[in-house]
């Protein structure tokens, strides 16, 4: 157990270090999410309700996550570095967990900027929205990281990831929008927890099969 945690920490640290050096994922995500919010401002006619804007916030979050996920396995794929990690004696699921943690960190960082920006551009957000975003991030990242590894194997790569990911993101969007717009968000937050738990477990358990050639 401690060995596992140590492996995850080493691998996640490596990803964060790479991002610190190359700086290509996080700035892209930030720029994307702000641009998306600006586009959404013009997509909403002036008398649209705040609720419509809430819905668009979730669209922005899902697509920003996609931007980050598309980059997730680029380093591992381009020079087959995944082989180096597979050769190492660590459990394969640790590779998934570490990658998911680093993507979660990037997505979280992007949202730390995006949520206040949203509040400034559109309307204020309550604690339930923030809680829903946090819960949704976990589910998005858990599923997305696994699918990013799947997409890295296929010939179409970046193209296929949204196709694989979006149908699975629909329940997250429903839970998130629900929690942001209704008065008592408990049910929706509970649903997001369920989604996170179920998909985190099956992603964790199935990663090994995805990477063996």
């Amino acid at each position: 157990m401690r060995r596992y945690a140590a492996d995850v920490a080493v691998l996640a640290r490596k990803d964060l270090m790479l991002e610190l050096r190359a700086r290509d994922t996080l700035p892209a995500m930030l720029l994307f999410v702000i641009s998306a919010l600006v586009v959404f401002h013009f997509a909403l006619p002036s008398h649209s309700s705040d609720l419509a804007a809430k819905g668009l916030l979730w669209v922005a979050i899902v697509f920003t996550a996609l931007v980050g996920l598309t980059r997730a396995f680029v380093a591992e794929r381009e020079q087959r570095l995944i082989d180096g990690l597979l050769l190492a004696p660590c459990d394969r699921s640790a590779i998934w967990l570490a990658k998911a943690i680093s993507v979660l960190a990037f997505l979280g960082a992007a949202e730390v900027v995006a949520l206040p920006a949203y509040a400034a551009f559109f309307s204020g957000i309550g604690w339930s929205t923030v809680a829903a975003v946090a819960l949704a991030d976990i589910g998005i990242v858990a599923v997305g990281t696994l699918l990013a590894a799947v997409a890295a194997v296929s010939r179409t790569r970046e193209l296929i990831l949204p196709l694989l990911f979006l149908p699975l993101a629909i329940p997250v969007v429903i839970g998130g929008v629900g929690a942001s717009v209704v008065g008592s968000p408990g049910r929706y937050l509970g649903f997001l927890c369920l989604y996170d738990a179920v998909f985190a477990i099956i992603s964790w358990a199935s990663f090994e099969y995805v990477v063996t050639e």
Partner: protein
Amino acid sequence: MTTVLLGGAVALIFFYAPVDQDGLNQKIFYFHVPIALTSYACFGWGALKAFQHLWKRTPGADLESYVAIHQGVIFGAMTLVTGSIWAKVRWGVWWVWGDEQLVLFLVLFLFYCAYFMLRFSVDPGPQRANLCAVYALFGVVLIPISFLAIRLANSYIHPTVFTSNGPQMATSQLATFCVAWAAMLSLAYFLYRFELAGKRLDADLKELRELLA
């Protein structure tokens, strides 16, 4: 056997089952719902085969899983089309977001279309079998999760929920329904064996060609 069942089902639907206050559109119900249930059965069977592939490495399970999902998608497409026509007859519109089953099918249809995209963009081999099996398992988990999500969504999108099967069914209606369902299941099974036999023959021939070359 399948032909007899299908013929029997059609006969029962048109000459036996009474038409109640809903009107003639009932006749679609007898086909639409069994097709939908059969489609679920195909997805479930595909996921079961996928699980066998991952867990026990059953040879050929990958192909069986793929063929079952292929059937599921065909029946899913039929569900969408007949459901759309049914909605038109009953509510006068081609698409009803309030019909949970129909919306769920749309989500699943998108998901399994992505499955095919994935399958055709990876070279055949053990890795493709693994990727597809993992994705098929995601699908079977997505079914209840999506169902729950869509039900939740209806409470903030649609204040009123259409009920899919009107009043209680009379015995004669239930009998007709069951026969129609059995007919659809046996049709699906027949097509499944048919396609599977073709695919196996294809694989054998490929091997033979290689041996002779």
